[in-house]
């Protein structure tokens, strides 16, 4: 492998870490189509799914182009095995109830917006262009999920209790967002990637403030899950992939 090839592969793997989060969360939100608790929230969640899947297409098209092989965005989305997906464990957690959906979304949105704001300054022009577009979309996502955290937390006794449970259960998945893999470190060094560990403190500060405003308790747990970025996923991931890949594996090469 020559150095250019190695550079493309490293870059591709780094982009997968970012893109796979959007794919799996987009798929999770897509599952809610027709099942949202109200028409407005149903539309909002699927709108957000659409934004995420749109971003994924741009990332995957770029990775396919970088690979230099005869690959398409569909190959990357649908024809990988579980261990090859690099998304964090947070985004694959199930749609247990609306409290979980919103908490998962909010925990991700705050991170996602910070990441995209930094990625805009990437030396890689394609990544920078995707991020510039995504920043605008993700700001809307965060506004929506943050509003709902406040509404549920400071709502009825029932909504408060349920969203607090979701916060407690999903909190241990947040730390992984900031884990720096060798690919991410190499990308930072090359000036194309973002050092997420640098805004970790800001992240926890912002999230904690909103939780308090929503009359929720900030969990004190110091135990965190990880593994997603290495392709070691929770038990939920296989089911998502089965659902998502079914058509493409049954009818290979199928197109819209």
């Amino acid at each position, binding site marked *: 492998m020559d150095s250019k090839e190695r550079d493309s592969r490293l870059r591709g793997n780094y982009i997968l870490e970012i893109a796979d989060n959007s794919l799996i969360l987009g798929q999770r939100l897509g599952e809610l189509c027709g099942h949202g608790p109200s028409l407005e929230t149903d539309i909002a969640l699927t*709108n957000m799914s659409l934004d995420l899947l749109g971003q994924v297409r741009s990332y995957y098209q770029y990775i396919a182009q970088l690979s230099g092989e005869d690959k398409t965005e569909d190959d990357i989305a649908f024809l990988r095995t579980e261990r090859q997906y690099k998304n964090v464990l947070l985004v694959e957690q199930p749609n247990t109830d609306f409290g979980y959906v919103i908490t998962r979304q909010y925990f991700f949105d705050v991170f996602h917006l910070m990441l995209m704001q930094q990625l805009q300054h990437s030396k890689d022009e394609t990544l920078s262009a995707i991020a510039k577009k995504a920043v605008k979309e993700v700001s809307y996502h965060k506004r*929506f999920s943050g509003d709902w955290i406040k509404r549920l937390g400071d709502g009825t006794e029932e909504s408060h209790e349920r969203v607090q449970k979701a916060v407690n259960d999903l909190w241990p998945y947040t730390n992984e967002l900031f884990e720096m893999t060798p690919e991410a470190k190499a990308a930072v060094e090359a000036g194309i990637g973002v050092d997420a560990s640098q805004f970790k403190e800001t992240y926890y500060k912002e999230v904690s403030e909103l939780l308090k405003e929503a009359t929720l308790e900030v969990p004190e747990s110091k135990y965190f899950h990880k593994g997603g970025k290495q392709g070691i996923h929770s038990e939920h991931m296989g089911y998502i992939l089965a659902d998502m890949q079914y058509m493409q594996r049954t009818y290979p090469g199928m197109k819209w």
Partner: protein
Amino acid sequence: MTDSVTHITPKLLNILKTVPDPEIPVLTVVDLGVVREAVVLEDGTVEVKIIPTYSGCPAMDVIGDDIVTAFAKAGMKARVKLMLSPAWSTDMISEEGRIALEKYGIAAPLDATADKAALLGNKKLVKCPQCGSKNTGLVSQFGSTACKAQFKCNDCLEPFDYFKCLK
């Protein structure tokens, strides 16, 4: 090229102006601001460069096909390229486009600060396209397409779409 400048050869502009947005048919793709470049290449092919409104906008494929069809009708071969940059913003909607939106019943986007205040429900700034009243309220930040939010008018009681500011 700055973000607001487009390069469209005048004789191609008239053809492009016949192509409506598939989801908001009163708006042409030119008024919407998604066409950034249109030139005739040396071999006679027309090359049109478009940008998406939202990353996942499902209308982009249709817009591409419609542009090719419009040129085919005029006896020209066209090819459409989707670009990622510049990132589309609602500032790229033309003045004619804004008027057409209002006539169609969709409130045109406010500037960024006013938009935020309106979408957070802090201030009543969005004007009802039916009766002109500003006594309106947000129903949902997300609407029937990625680019719109849902509002209702408290005076004439009509629900309506608001084209969200994207900058």
